[in-house]
């Protein structure tokens, strides 16, 4: 529904503040490790769309989750991925863009047999 406003052309006074063009060539990607809620929410990263998915995993995701005792036990070949709600098998050699990621995509991943500290999803 349009905004109830005192002017009839409200949208002419607005700007989409987080449009992709404002991120200097990057796209924002959200990543969330399921059943590990000691990381309170999904993490946000500004990344070049040409970055290989494998580099996202090894250079961005892995180091940012390293503080968790489960992190060292992750077997990346068994990880289950959902990208924007769909189950996917990402191509680690291909770019984020080629893997279907776009500005403000959400990547959720599950690590089988790792369910957080003492199995508490923490």
């Amino acid at each position: 529904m349009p905004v109830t406003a005192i002017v009839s052309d409200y949208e002419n006074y607005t700007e989409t503040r987080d449009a992709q063009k404002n991120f200097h060539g990057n796209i924002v990607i959200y990543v969330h490790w399921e059943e590990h809620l000691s990381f309170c929410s999904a993490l946000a990263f500004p990344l070049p769309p040409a970055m290989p998915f494998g580099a996202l995993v090894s250079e961005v995701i892995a180091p940012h989750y390293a503080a968790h005792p489960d992190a060292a036990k992750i077997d990346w070949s068994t990880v289950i991925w959902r990208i924007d709600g769909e189950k996917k098998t990402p191509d680690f050699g291909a770019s984020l863009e080629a893997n279907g990621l776009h500005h403000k995509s959400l990547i959720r991943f599950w690590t089988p047999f790792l369910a957080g500290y003492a199995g508490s999803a923490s």
Partner: protein
Amino acid sequence: MTVKKLGLRQRYAHMTRGLDWETTYQPMDSVFPYDSFEGIKVKDWSAWEDPFRLTMDTYWKFQAEKERKLYAVLDSFAQNNGQTGVSDGRYINALKLFLTGISPGEYQAHRGFAFAGRHLRGAGPRVAAQMQSLDELRHLQTQVHTISQYNKFFDGLSEFPHMHDRVWYLSVPKSFFDDARSAGPFEYMIAIGFSFEYVLTNLLFVPFMSGAAYNGDMSTVTFGFSAQSDESRHMTLGIEVIKFLLEQHPDNLPIVQKWLDKWFWRGHRLLGLVAMMMDYMLPKKVMSWKEAWEIYFTEAGGSLFQDLARYGLRPPKYADVATQEAEHISHQNWAVFYQYTHAAGFHTWMPDKEHLDWLSAKYPNTFDKYYRPRWEMWAEQEKQGKRFYNNALPQLCQTCQIPMAYTEPGDPTVICFRSTQFQSETYHFCSDGCKDIFDDEPEKYVQAWMPVQQIFQGNCGGATIPDVLAWYNLNNGADNLDYVGSPDEKIWNEWHAENARKAV
């Protein structure tokens, strides 16, 4: 000659309604351009009731008397070094949260009611809104003066107006009031006057003021008493406005219901900061957030909405979800600040065993199962010298701007992710409540100043945490990080070592 005195009712009639007139040089619609575009229909402004019948001259007299009493207490608190007598140095962090998160909202409310007090066509509500506008400004001033005594000794207080416009979690209260103030005057009155000041106000003031009383902070308690009679007038205005709108025209009901749903949910999200303060930040606890929610929302709100049912108004949408969340939000919020302590303007700490046991007792259904293990893991890591930090920035909800840390209704092990597409852009939300608000007015919320995205766009002083903290005017190493090891802790321990020496 004896001066004939007017009765209260006559005085009120002369001093408010009697000062109003119908304009003739300009049409009324040009003089009051803001009170029709929202679709609210008012047939008879004179039907507005003002149970207080307060006139401006009496208002000044009352307020001056209260000021004299408050400032006498503040003076004696300062002379007696009252700041050394609170329960523990940790308590000051509740005041930091109040001054940075709540007090600027008083100022925003002052501006908002000044707007409503100019733009509502009826003289009754206009005068009431003008008085509330002055009250809110007085609250800001007295809060600043009350807390300034602590600012002489503790970190994290001095930059509150600057921080309000910049710091990531302060965008939560800021965006709440920006949203209300950029709406029309009727929505503003329902948002702040009714939903916040009537439905939710006890969940804000009782925790902070009782928290102050339990923790030996007599200056803040006195401020609370000084504000109390204003608050009851605000509540009366809040309930009056909703009854007035619903009685004026049946077409107003769906509009008012939509605003109630929206502002209840926004208020609930904002109060999560209070929940965390109650359960984690008060050294001497008053009650749990869950208990406060049961008393002040479930019971008090229940009878309020029973009363309003005769107008066709139903309780706010997602009230059931909010009640479920009362089990979780304080733990989830303190966990956010614990892991982002390096970017917080107050100190955090690990709850000790006694505190964890209190939480287990207050939250028997959830704490041991979902949250105690989290604190135990982090305590273990602290012991090993590997204190847990989150070194990435969090995903934020586009509506409430809080990190998306809240879990699915019914499953506290899974984050609640909601999203929507608007003009081929993706937007993320922490809840159905926040998503509905966006979907109703997407053009408004696409403009949101999201702190994380702003850092990525390069608008916050730089790309590293120290750059951003400097841009926040947040003194790295003093204002932020854990209480243990902070300058606050040092000064607190010095005072108490001195007291112990004197006692021997």
